[in-house]
C-alpha cells in the first residue's frame, strides 16, 4: 500500500492566529488508496491543518503539493477544483435548503441552463442510500437532527467523488451502527484509490480503519506510523506525552435515595411514557440510537422544551419546570450536547461563562461581587485543570475539551442535586475525557445524582451504574450494571430486545 503515489504532501506548514500559534512546521504525506488518521488532543491543530489543506485557511508558512504539483489555494473552491473535499467538524450546511440541495451545494446539475431538480433529488437519494440512511432528499435540512445532518454532510463530500476526502470527526454524533456503515463506505472508497484523511478521538476507530496514523501535539507533528503494530496506549502516549492508564475509571460511591423520578413523561412528539429514576451517588446512563429522543427527554426535564404528560419528582417533590431557571431552583443542572450552540457564550470570558447561571447569587443588591466571581472561576479552572488556566481568556479561544470543562464547571457552581450530561465527552480528547470522567466520579462520591446521555457504548458500559435504553421515543426498563453488555444494549436500542 505504501507503494502507491502520494496524493498530497504538506511541508513545514505553520499557522499563526492572533494570540495562538496553531501549527508549527507540520509535514504530512498521504498516499492514494490509503486511510490516514490524524490524532491529537483538543487544540492540537488537527482541524486547522485540514482547513489549510482544503483551502479554507491559508498557511502562514509552508507548501502544499497535490498529486505531485505544488498548489496555492485561496478558498475552498480552489481546493474543490483539485478534488479535495472536507467533512467539517462543525456542521457546514445550509439549514434553509433541502437535503438534496445541500448535497449538491456549489455544483447543482443543470439542464438547458435551468436547475435539474429531478436529477439532483435522484442522485441525492442514491448517495444517501449508499450511506445506509433513509433521509428524504426533499426535506428541509434544518428540520433534521444533528446526526442526520452529519450524514448529509458526509453524503455531500462523498457525492462529489473526490480524489482526496478529509473527515474531521465524522462519527462524533453518529451511532455505532451508522459509523459501521460509514466505515464500509470508506473502505470501498479506499479500494477505489481515493486518499482518505480521518480525524477522530475514538482511537478504536482509528485502529479499525486507518492504514497510517499521524500524531499532533501542541501544533507540532510528533510522528507518522503505520497502524499495523501500534496500540491505543501507544497513540495516547504520543498524544499526551506520557501514559494514561485507566481510560474509563469507575468511581465507587454510596448509592442513596432517589433524587430524580420521572414517570410516564411524554412530549407528544419525540418520546412517550418515559419512566426512570436516578438516585444520589448513582450514574444512570441514557443511551440508544441516534434520534431515539434522549436529548428531548433531557431538555424536557430541564424545562427547555415542552412536556404534555407525566410527572417529574425531585427529592420526592413534584416539580414542573417551565424554564431552566425553574429547573435550576429544583436542583437540576444540564450540560447540553451542542456545546457551541447551547453551552457557551463565545464572546464572554471563561469567568463570565462559569458565573452565568448563578450570577444572581454572586450579587449584592444586583451588584456583581467581582472578587467572589473571580474566586469561583479560579477555583474551577484549577479544579478541572482548564488550559490555559487564565479565567479572563475568552472562552471561544479554548479548545473543545477545555470549553466542555468550563461548561461543566458552570453547572457545578450551581451546586445541583442532579446533573444531566448530554454527550459530555463528544469530540473531547482522551486526556480531557479522562478528566471529565474523573470529575463525574468525584461528584457522585459527593452524593450528586448523574444522568448521562451517551452514544459511546464503551463509555456507558464503563461508568454507568444502570442504563436506560431508548428506542424511538420509548424507554426500556433500566439494565443493572451486572447485566450490562453491548449486545443487550444494542438489542434494546434497535427495538429487538424484549422488555
Amino acid at each position, binding site marked *: 500500500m505504501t507503494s502507491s503515489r502520494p496524493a498530497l504532501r504538506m511541508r513545514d506548514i505553520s499557522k499563526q492566529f492572533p494570540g495562538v500559534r496553531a501549527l508549527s512546521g507540520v509535514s504530512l504525506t498521504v498516499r492514494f488508496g490509503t486511510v490516514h488518521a490524524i490524532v491529537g488532543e483538543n487544540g492540537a491543530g488537527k482541524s486547522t491543518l485540514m482547513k489549510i489543506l482544503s483551502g479554507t485557511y491559508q498557511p502562514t508558512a509552508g507548501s502544499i503539493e497535490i498529486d505531485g504539483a505544488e498548489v496555492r489555494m485561496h478558498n475552498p473552491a480552489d481546493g474543490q477544483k483539485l478534488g479535495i473535499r472536507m467533512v467539517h467538524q462543525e456542521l457546514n*450546511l445550509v439549514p434553509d435548503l433541502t437535503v438534496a440541495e445541500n448535497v449538491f451545494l*456549489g455544483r447543482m446539475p443543470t439542464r438547458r441552463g435551468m436547475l435539474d431538480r429531478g436529477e439532483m433529488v435522484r442522485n441525492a437519494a442514491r448517495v444517501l442510500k449508499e450511506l445506509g440512511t433513509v433521509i428524504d432528499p426533499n426535506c428541509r435540512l*434544518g*428540520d433534521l437532527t444533528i446526526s442526520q445532518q452529519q450524514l448529509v454532510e458526509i453524503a455531500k463530500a462523498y457525492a462529489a467523488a473526490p480524489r482526496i476526502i478529509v473527515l474531521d470527526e465524522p462519527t462524533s454524533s453518529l451511532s455505532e451502527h451508522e459509523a459501521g456503515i460509514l466505515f464500509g463506505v470508506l473502505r470501498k472508497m479506499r479500494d477505489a484509490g481515493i486518499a482518505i484523511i480521518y480525524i477522530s478521538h475514538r482511537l478504536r476507530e482509528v485502529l479499525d480503519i486507518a492504514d497510517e496514523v499521524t500524531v499532533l501535539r501542541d501544533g507540532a507533528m510528533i510522528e507518522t506510523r503505520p497502524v499495523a503494530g501500534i496500540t491505543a496506549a501507544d497513540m495516547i502516549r504520543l498524544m499526551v506525552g506520557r501514559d494514561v492508564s485507566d481510560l474509563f475509571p469507575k468511581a465507587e460511591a454510596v448509592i442513596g435515595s432517589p433524587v430524580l423520578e420521572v414517570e410516564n413523561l411524554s412530549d407528544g412528539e419525540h418520546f412517550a411514557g418515559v419512566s426512570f429514576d436516578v438516585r444520589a451517588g448513582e450514574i444512570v446512563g441514557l443511551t440508544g440510537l441516534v434520534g431515539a429522543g434522549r436529548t428531548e427527554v433531557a431538555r424536557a426535564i430541564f424545562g427547555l422544551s415542552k412536556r404534555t404528560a407525566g410527572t417529574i419528582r425531585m427529592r420526592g417533590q413534584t416539580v414542573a419546570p417551565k424554564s431552566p431557571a425553574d429547573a435550576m431552583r429544583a436542583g437540576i443542572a444540564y450540560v447540553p450536547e451542542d456545546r457551541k450552540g447551547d453551552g457557551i457564550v463565545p464572546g464572554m470570558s471563561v469567568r463570565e461563562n462559569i458565573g452565568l447561571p448563578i450570577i444572581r447569587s454572586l450579587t449584592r443588591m444586583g451588584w456583581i461581587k467581582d472578587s467572589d466571581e473571580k474566586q469561583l472561576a479560579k477555583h474551577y479552572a484549577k479544579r478541572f485543570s482548564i488550559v490555559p488556566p487564565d479565567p479572563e481568556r475568552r472562552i471561544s479561544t479554548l479548545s473543545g475539551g477545555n470549553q466542555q470543562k468550563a461548561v461543566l464547571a458552570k453547572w457545578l457552581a450551581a451546586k445541583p442535586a442532579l446533573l444531566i450530561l448530554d454527550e459530555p465527552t463528544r469530540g473531547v480528547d482522551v486526556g480531557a475525557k479522562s478528566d471529565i470522567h474523573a470529575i463525574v466520579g468525584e461528584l457522585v462520591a459527593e452524593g450528586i445524582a448523574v444522568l448521562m446521555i451517551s452514544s459511546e457504548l464503551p463509555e456507558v458500559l464503563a461508568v454507568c451504574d444502570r442504563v436506560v435504553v431508548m428506542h424511538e421515543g420509548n424507554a426500556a426498563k433500566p439494565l443493572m450494571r451486572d447485566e450490562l453488555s453491548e449486545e443487550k444494549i444494542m438489542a434494546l436500542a434497535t427495538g429487538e430486545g424484549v422488555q
Partner: protein
Amino acid sequence: MNALSFALRYRVGFILLATLLLASILVPGFFSLVTLGLGLDRAATMGLIAIGLTVLLISGQIDLSGGAVFAVSGIVSIILQPTLGIGLAALVGVLTGAAAGMINGWLVVRLGINSLVATLASMLAFRSIAHWITESQPVSGIDMMFSLAISEIYLEIFTLRSALFLVAIILLHFWLVYTVPGRNLFAVGSSAMAAEASGINSNRIFFSGFVFASTLAGVAGVLQALTMNTGSPVFGSDLTVMVIAAVVVGGTRIEGGRGSALGTLGGILTIASLTTAMEFQSVPAYIQQIVAGCILMLLVVLDRTIRTRPLTGPEVPASR
C-alpha cells in the same frame, strides 16, 4: 390543522384577497380597469425597488439606501437631458444606480461593514449628493410630452412601469426557484459560511446583490423622474421603509435564507390596494398608518406562529 397551515403558508394571498374584497365593497368601481391600472402603476415604483430588496434580503443583507439612490438616479437622468438627450440620460441615470450599488457592495464586501451600518452611511451620503448637485432645488426635464407618453396606459391597464414590474417579478420568481444561482442565493443567505465551504463565492453574490438592488432603485428612480419630468433631492425618503415592510409582509425573512418573488408581489399589491382603497374613502393619512401598521404586525405575528409550529423541538444548532 392542514387547512390552517395552508392558510398560514399562503397568508399574503389571503390578506390580499381580503383587502381586495373589502376594497370592492368600500370603493365603487374599484375593479374597473382604470382603477386597477392606476393601483398597479402606483405599486410599480415600490415594486421595482422591492424586487432588488427581495434578492438582497434573501442573501442576508439589507439596503437602506434605496430611497436615496432612487432620488439621485432620477436627478441624473433629468439634468443630463439637455446634453445627452432623454434616452441616453436615462441610461446614465440607471448606471448611476448601479455605481451606487457598487459602492454599497464595496463597503460591505471589501471593508466588511455590516450592511445595515454601511447602507445607513451611504444613504446619508447619497442623499447629500442629491442635494448637492441640485442645490436642493427640484430640476425639470426638457420635454413634458415625453412624460405624458411614458405614463400612457396600454391595454387599458398597463403602464410601462407596471408592465416592467410584473415581468421582472415573474423573471425573479423563475430565477429564484429554477436556477442554480438562485438557489445559491438562498444558500448564502441561510449560512454564508457553509456556502463558502461548498465553493460558492458568497462575496461575489453579496456584491452582485447590492448592485442589482441599487440598479433597480435606479430604474425606478429614472422612471419616476421621467413620468414627473422632475428630479428632486427629497424624492423617495419614505420609500425604503415602506418597501422593506412590503417585502417582509410577503414572507421574506429579514435575516436571510427565506423569501419568494410571488410573496413580494403579494406584499406590494396588498399595500398598494390598501392605500388606494383607503384613499378613495378619504381616510386621513394617520388612520391609514394605523391600519397599515396593524396589518404589518398581524402578518409577522402569523408568520411567527407558522414558523414555530413544526419546530417545537430545539432549534437546530447548525442553523446558527
